[in-house]
């Protein structure tokens, strides 16, 4: 589905990613582990097209960006926007005319309240709900389990399994290895800018 070839990224003299080669198959989940600052988020941002890079990201999809749901480590919210309005914004950005968000509110969030007043975990759940509403083909979930309560973590893991069965492709990073071994088909280890290890989940 997506072929990443010789992807490199540097900020000035600081080489963050070096010759990354990965082949991503449809309906599979790929986990990425690595120390803080190892380049996981940069790799995700490059695939998403938010960062410029050297190398190639080839895809069977006509446009990766328009089929990609990107959950950021710390989702950004505008001030004085309710949860409902945030969902509407992200749907209208993809020209989806969905408005019945109460039915799709899987995390039971208070959609009529300002999103910026949500807790860290609630913000992440709202951002994830928006991505699910967009019906993407590819999902990049950067630290989806951090800051989220245990009950919701289980829900997120179930969601990942559901998305896989629907044929969606997922890229997930996490510092909790067990969440990746439970959800991912392949796990990559990113160190010093290289994908230098491959761990097969049990």
């Amino acid at each position, binding site marked *: 589905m997506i072929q990443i070839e010789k992807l490199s990224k540097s900020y000035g003299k600081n080489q963050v990613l070096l010759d990354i080669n990965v082949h991503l198959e449809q309906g599979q989940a790929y986990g990425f582990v690595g120390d803080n600052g190892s380049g996981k988020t940069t790799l995700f941002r490059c695939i*998403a*097209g*938010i960062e*410029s890079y050297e190398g190639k990201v080839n895809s069977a999809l006509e*446009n990766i*960006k*328009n089929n990609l749901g*990107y959950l*950021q480590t710390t989702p*950004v919210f*505008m*001030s*004085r*926007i*309710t949860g409902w*309005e*945030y969902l*509407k*914004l*992200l749907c*209208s*950005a*993809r*020209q989806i005319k969905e*408005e019945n968000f109460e039915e799709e509110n899987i995390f039971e969030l208070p959609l*009529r*309240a*300002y999103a*910026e*007043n949500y807790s860290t975990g609630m913000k992440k759940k709202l951002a994830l709900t928006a991505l699910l509403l967009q019906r993407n083909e590819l999902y990049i979930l950067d630290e989806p389990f951090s800051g989220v309560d245990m009950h919701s973590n289980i829900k997120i893991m179930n969601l990942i399994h559901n998305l896989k069965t629907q044929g969606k492709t997922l890229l997930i990073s996490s510092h909790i290895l067990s969440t990746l071994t439970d959800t991912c088909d392949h796990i990559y280890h990113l160190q010093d800018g290289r994908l230098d290890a491959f761990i097969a989940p049990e």
Partner: protein
Amino acid sequence: MKYYFSLQLLRLERKLKEVGIPPAIGMFCTGILFIFISNYLFSKTIYATIIYLIFAFSACVTLGQKEYDPLLRQIFSSKEHQRIRLYENAIVLLPFGLYLLFEAQYLAVFALLPIGLATSFMKPRPTPTFVLPTPFKKFPFEFIVGFRKYYWFIAIVLLLMLKAIQVDNYNLALFSFGLLFFTCMGFFVKPEKTYFVWVHSRKTKAFLLEKFKIAFICMAILSTIPYIGLVFLYPDRIFITSLILGLGYLFLSSIILAKYSAFPLDMNVPQALLYAVSLWFPPILLIVMIIFYKQSKRRLDTILE
């Protein structure tokens, strides 16, 4: 506390250097610009003193709402924090006071004192839990955010227009009508986070057209009734009222282009100056809009295409 103010000066210098202006020249030009705008205001309207005081008040309130105020409250004692706020207000109000002295508006100079004092006690407003309803629910996001932040100012502008109509002062009513557009233009000054542009599946041209469409619909929601009111009550002035309406929409389009011309950064100084000149002399606005469109396209293409 002294270190805090020297840090603020350092931050200002760095900001100016970032946009390529030597700090000394930047500060000098800001002073000249302030005098020029003040002079223009006082030469154009008899309500200049009131407008000037409103600006001074807004500047002090804005200063008190800065993001890092909670941090200041943590690291300084409440007495020191209060003194910082007083000094900050004094620095901001000084140029206003000097110009009012120049204009011999002595009463207004004295009015600055309670403004500076009262606003120094203001605490940053936390985001209220009460969600203010807006008429723009289906049109995220600039008007929704802007309306919720400045609804009180919009109310003042509309009340001023009503009062002007009541005393049969067409010029003031027209000024208020223009101010309504000017206020809404302010909703588009600050660029959003890149993510909120990246997430769109539209190409640049379609993205900008969508922005125009939403802005026009929202502006129409706010301005149609005042416009009809003015046309109905002053039918002989329909041309000038419609001209302001048309210019308002043109300026609204131009601020959208101006915002994205530097995206994801704030407008730089040359762009801001170019925009200020076009506000002052609208005939060049069309040329400026073409320039801003080309710059916006270049900026947005890297994110959207």
